[in-house]
């Protein structure tokens, strides 16, 4: 307590000024409905250019899992104007770097380039928004690539397999139960027609957000955006349908996985939670702070109880992720100390969780968590890639620019009572999903060196 009284107020007050020192965004909408967001940051003569589509794996047709991510790969296969693979080669020849990613709710393509190449990059990105060209042979070869990607990310990693199982178990009706990369057997059947169907349906300027961060002036970006993207026709049918809604949870669920490839035994506990855009005012912020206090780092409740005091876990981590369109997730991960049974670790973790539900958090814990998060907003502002992602994630998941920039202030308003209420509402056994991952008992970890 003494420590908190001495240090926290000072760092908090000043952090307020610091958060306001972070760059701020300017927003426009083109006539065809495409949103444009510019975050000026003049420290280096470079820009981060991103196009975010409001569509992701959770919008896939049943039986076509993986098509969102597959199309993301195929977007590099050329257009009427550009040969296969030329997109990335041209970016590289211009000293740029490019990549893309797919999530449940969105798909994004991005490039980092010198600022005088922004026009070139915009022209290429606009071109492939509407002029994609796919050849059957290339689609087949790329399908082999995504299957190898799945083997690397999932099949070769029992921890990732468990996570996939937990997701499929937590969501019983909402398509969040599907892996972003897709199920292997469905990915293996995806073809050119599937890709085009998805592309023509969803890829359109009125379903996209342009985010540019870096050494630019907003009006200049707007002018370039009008030239490159403004002429593309809107597609009123591009907007996604609402997804099926998850029914209330009635029973806790468990997934117990035994795999010789497991390292030390691992416990996972997850709970569904609201996402930032759909939570009641202050609730998502309270969840961020709650999970920091419960599981974020070596001064957290769970770490202190299970790793430091009881010594039954070798590590504990966790957090709340609220950057999603339809729902967020609380996830806790614990690695059992050698020889400790997962059942014992789980019981001990549940006691810590019950304690925070019953008695809430201390003012000192709240101030520490708050000052770290407010500082993280400043740290994250130190880089145009992170800045562009901050705004892209927020907007594509239903927040406004005001919401995004006001986050540090809303954190300041959270009280200990808010956190206690969030704990009681969301750390609910009935809605929980618990995962175990361990080696078969017969060949329990022989110590080797």
């Amino acid at each position, binding site marked *: 307590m003494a420590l908190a009284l001495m240090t926290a107020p000072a760092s908090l007050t000043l952090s307020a000024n610091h958060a306001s*020192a972070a760059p701020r965004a300017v927003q426009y909408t083109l006539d065809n409905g495409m949103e444009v967001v510019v975050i000026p940051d*003049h420290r280096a003569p470079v820009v981060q250019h991103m196009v975010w589509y409001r569509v992701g794996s959770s919008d896939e047709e049943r039986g076509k899992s993986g098509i969102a991510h597959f199309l993301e790969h195929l977007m*590099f296969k050329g257009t009427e104007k550009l040969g296969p693979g030329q997109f*990335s080669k041209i970016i590289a*020849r211009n000293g740029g770097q490019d990549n893309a990613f797919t999530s449940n709710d969105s798909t994004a393509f991005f490039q980092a380039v010198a600022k005088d190449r922004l026009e070139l990059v915009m022209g290429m990105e606009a071109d492939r928004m509407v002029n994609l060209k796919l050849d059957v042979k290339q689609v087949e070869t790329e399908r082999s690539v995504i299957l190898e990607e799945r083997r690397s990310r999932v099949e070769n990693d029992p921890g990732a397999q468990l996570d996939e199982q937990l997701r499929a178990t937590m969501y019983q009706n909402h398509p969040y139960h599907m892996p972003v990369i897709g199920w292997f057997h469905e990915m293996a059947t995806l073809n050119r027609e599937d890709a085009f169907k998805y592309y023509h349906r969803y890829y359109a300027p009125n379903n996209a957000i342009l985010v540019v961060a870096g050494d630019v002036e907003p009006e200049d970006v707007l002018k370039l955006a009008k030239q490159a993207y403004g002429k593309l026709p809107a597609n009123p049918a591009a907007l996604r349908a609402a997804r099926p809604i998850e029914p209330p949870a009635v029973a806790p669920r468990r997934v117990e996985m035994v795999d010789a490839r497991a390292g030390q035994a691992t416990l996972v506990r997850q709970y569904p939670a609201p996402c930032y855009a759909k939570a009641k005012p202050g609730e998502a912020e309270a969840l961020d702070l709650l999970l920091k206090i419960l599981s974020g780092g070596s001064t957290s409740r769970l770490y202190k109880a299970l790793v430091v005091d009881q010594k039954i876990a070798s590590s504990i981590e966790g957090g709340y992720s609220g950057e999603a369109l339809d729902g967020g997730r609380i996830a806790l991960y614990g690695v059992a100390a050698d020889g400790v049974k997962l059942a014992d670790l789980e019981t001990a973790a549940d006691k810590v969780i019950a304690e925070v539900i019953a008695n809430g958090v201390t003012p000192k814990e709240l101030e520490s968590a708050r000052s770290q998060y407010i500082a993280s907003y400043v740290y994250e502002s130190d880089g145009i890639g992170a800045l562009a992602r901050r705004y892209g994630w927020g907007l594509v998941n239903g927040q406004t620019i005001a919401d995004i920039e006001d986050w540090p202030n809303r954190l300041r308003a959270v009280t200990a009572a808010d956190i206690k209420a969030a704990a009681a509402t969301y750390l609910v056994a009935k809605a929980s999903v618990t995962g175990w991952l361990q080696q078969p008992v017969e060949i329990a970890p022989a110590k080797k060196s």
Partner: protein
Amino acid sequence: MSSSRRPLDLLPTLTAFVLTTSFLLSPGIANAMKIQNVKSPGGIEAWLVEEHALPLLTLQFGFSGGSSQDPVERAGIANFLTSMLDEGAGDLKSEAFQEQEQLLAAKMRFEASRDSFTGTFQTLTVNRDKSADLLALAINKPRFDADAVDRMRRQMLASIQFESKDPEKVAEQAWFETAYAGHPYGRPVIGTTSSVTAVVPADLEAYRSRVFARDTLKVAVVGDIDAATLGGLLDKVFGGLAAKAQLQPVEAVDPTGGPTQKLIEMDIPQSVATFGQVGMKRKDPDFIAAFMLNYIIGGGGFASRLMDQVREKRGLAYSVYSYIQPLQRSSIYMGGVATKTEGMDKSLEVIRAELARMAADGPTDEELADAKQYLTGSYALNFTSSSAISGQLLGLQMQDLPIDYVDTRNAKVTAVSIEDIRRVAKKMLRPDQLIVTVVGKAMKAGVAQN
């Protein structure tokens, strides 16, 4: 969860390398970014870039050493030490130290490689003095309390367990054990179950007092601070260290034992291979040409031949890459590929053929021109945040490159001719001497065991 097209996350070593050997500074960067050589009143030197746009500061530092300075029976001690510096220091026990660190929103993390022990420290300007006090304690007066040592030991042992099941880690460590048998570079940076089990607090202090010293210290600072203020901070944090490190000599060595191909059996659907051979030393005048050659073979993502042949043309893999890893006392040209069990023979055949083709013919004029354009044009992208810039500046210092390196490097890269690259390709590439370690299932025909 998200899935990305390009396996950037699979290329940590490449990233680290690019960090320290990116060449070209566009005039814009060079003009905008002024690197000052700051010398503190106590004689500690640092490279500083002042950047006052945000109220924060990043300081990165490094000592020579790393796991190559681990005593043989204490393999992993440098890595162990990275976890112990913020586990209590001075009068603050572990919990009190970390509560302070979090309340101040300061960040410190430490890392050990084969050749170095490095640290990264970030603080908000408002908390700078108090945060620097904590860093000074961590570096000069870590407590190594028995309970904290045991707690970190449990984490180290768990990591060793996890790494022993991770195909990429297993393939890479098997490669180093093969290529550097009997040499410190052959030992796992993370240590072994028995070596980590044996660690006592005195081992950690012995390593710290031997390696943390002013004569090998390099410091890079970027952010909201001026030279005079930094001088005081440097003396506070580093001024109390020993003047001279007591390093064990590490013998200069080339990777040996090729050609060989080893299979480590693991029941996984996708096999993972690490391949490598002798590379090019950092101080060799041909290093830049070799670095550019690697960009063309396997370092340039979708611009590279390996990606084109293995992934784009054949769909054999999601990830295939190569890089040059210059160590202080050696150098490696190495790479990796991951493919379904039955695809491994073919993938390795294609990779060997590409290396042989490049050794025989070199790159095309167009490939060289593209490489120059990328490497020159993309340099500015390494300077877009305080931590990126300080990482660059520390990397240059750790490789003993001069402070004006960023200005002179441009001309050096542009000067590399097609003849230079052909000569270096012929000299360096030895596909017939490749050391390959594969983790996965045996094939019917088997991965040949030589």
